[in-house]
């Protein structure tokens, strides 16, 4: 069962549609977004000379840093009065990315999320519990509007307060759960502690995303909660949730290719990989009005699944995301860059900080400890002042990252000095 007929489009028709929409997007960004106008002019690109999708490789890339450099509204292609929604990533100026949506964008977004909900088995008779945080992150609102468009009964419970979540799941007879996969397992643990049998619940479907998860985790979730657990993918820079989602075959995420042109490129050479090989997912939006992006480097690693899907959708699938090409981490569903931690510590210490980031998973919950090397500027002979300092570091990191962390002071020069970025992070999770 599909939500809209484009999901079954013949490939030739799809490519024709993509081409038209790409030309329209190129015109839009060249006219309204200085960043792209300048880039096109530097590279002597003329959108009107585009005749085939393979011309895509002539277009420049867009990176997260480009978006940060244009904080807050520099990349918007419409005047602010036409923007009806603004979302943002965590972080202060220099680290946050801001995205905008017109009324039509919201409608498109809602329809694309309705598509992935339908693919996952959810329909208007379902009761959906959305346990994603509602706020500047796109997860909560994205799934909410899509579920409403679908006509399902939406419980906008947001994240946290697990006991209450379970109570509501029982009382309101939730049939579909939306949250991070690790939170689903946490709920299963709490149910066990409370002596609640998940088989007694009305749960049938689960849509999980915002963090990477393994096939093993999927098996555990579907067994323990008695549901069909599907993966979905999105990122706010491109739209939010609804970029791609699994059908009930649970074997790859159908990409909404009539709205997003995807490429899988070698992260070093930026050339297309051989068909079916792993590479970096690069996305060009085809219908976004307020915030179109051209060849956005997601830094997510995946591969295309070339075989046709038994569900009948002609939209190609990508495999579950298998890693990153940069040092970004996902902790409790929130994107965290180690450089954010560095910026906060530098500000507090007044010198180049030395730290390690240890990430573990305890009882299905991500736990982060930032080990900070002590320096004189943050060392006090008075215990009260020293403990206040540790608290200050904790609070400021939580405010910057959007997720809580533990802080432990360690001796100077006790942490390994890193050469590359990756050795600051010790990720003990087996994802």
């Amino acid at each position, binding site marked *: 069962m599909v939500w809209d007929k484009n999901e079954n489009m013949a490939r030739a028709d799809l490519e024709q549609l993509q081409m038209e929409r790409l030309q329209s997007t190129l015109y839009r960004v060249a006219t309204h977004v200085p960043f792209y106008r300048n880039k096109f002019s530097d590279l002597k690109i003329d959108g009107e000379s585009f005749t085939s999708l393979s011309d895509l490789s002539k277009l420049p890339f867009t990176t997260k840093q480009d978006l940060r450099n244009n904080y807050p509204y520099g990349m918007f292609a419409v005047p602010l009065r036409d923007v009806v929604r603004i979302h943002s990533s965590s972080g202060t100026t220099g680290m946050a990315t801001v995205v905008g949506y017109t009324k039509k964008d919201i409608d498109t977004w809602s329809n694309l999320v309705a598509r992935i909900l339908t693919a996952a088995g959810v329909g208007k008779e379902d009761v959906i519990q959305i346990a994603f945080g509602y706020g500047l992150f796109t997860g909560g609102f994205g799934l909410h509007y899509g579920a409403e468009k679908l006509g399902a009964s939406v419980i906008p419970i947001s994240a946290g307060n697990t006991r209450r979540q379970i109570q509501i799941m029982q009382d309101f007879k939730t049939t579909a759960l939306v949250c991070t996969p690790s939170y689903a397992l946490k709920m299963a643990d709490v149910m066990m502690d409370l002596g609640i049998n998940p088989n007694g619940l009305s749960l049938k479907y689960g849509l999980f995303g915002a963090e990477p998860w393994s096939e093993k985790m999927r098996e555990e979730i579907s067994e323990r909660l008695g549901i069909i657990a599907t993966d979905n993918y999105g990122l706010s820079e491109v739209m939010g949730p609804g970029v791609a989602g699994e059908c009930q075959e649970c074997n790859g995420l159908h990409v909404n290719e009539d709205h997003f042109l995807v490429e899988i490129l070698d992260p070093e050479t930026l050339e297309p990989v051989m068909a079916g090989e792993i590479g970096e997912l690069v996305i060009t939006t085809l219908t976004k009005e307020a915030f179109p992006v051209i060849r956005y480097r997601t830094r997510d690693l995946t591969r295309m699944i070339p075989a046709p899907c038994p569900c009948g959708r002609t939209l190609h699938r990508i495999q579950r995301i298998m890693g990153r090409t940069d040092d970004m981490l996902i902790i409790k569903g929130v994107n965290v860059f180690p450089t954010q931690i560095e910026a906060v510590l530098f500000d507090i210490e007044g010198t180049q900080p030395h730290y390690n980031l240890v990430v573990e998973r305890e009882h299905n919950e991500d736990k982060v400890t930032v080990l900070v090397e*002590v*320096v*004189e500027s943050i*060392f*006090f*002979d*008075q*215990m*009260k002042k*020293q*403990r206040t300092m*540790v608290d200050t570091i904790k609070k400021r990191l939580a405010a910057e990252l959007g997720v809580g962390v533990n802080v*432990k*002071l*360690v*001796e*100077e*020069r*006790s942490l390994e000095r890193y050469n590359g970025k990756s050795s600051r992070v010790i990720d003990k999770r087996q994802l």
Partner: protein
Amino acid sequence: MRVEQIAVFLENKSGRLAEITAILAENNINIRALSVADTADFGILRLIVDQVAEAEKALRANGFTVGKTTVIAVEVPDRTGGLATVLKCIEKEELNVEYMYAFVNKTGENAVLIFRFDEMDRAIESLQRDGFTILESKQIYSL
């Protein structure tokens, strides 16, 4: 009137304290008094030594984080009630004590109380007014 005290950050690892005392010994530095304040995660070692600058240098050279602050050393007769009389004066004047520790003089007659006050000047003035002896730094170092 004020005595310099060194503070050293201690991670909760065994052997750190032993290492610090070894480094001081190697450099012929004498510890006059010490105190450790600890939490589950870390400790703060406070030291009164006889060569402050040398101690700082030696400890820093070995990778320790060292801070320096001033404290007051009050002498009291070493008999029961000695500490109580000092604390009564402090309470009367509503002086806030950040921390304190004590040690006994070798000659056996007096005890020395090390105090860190919020208001150092007012503390010195009040204690002297009430007749307590505040030791000079060179007196401490040579005890």
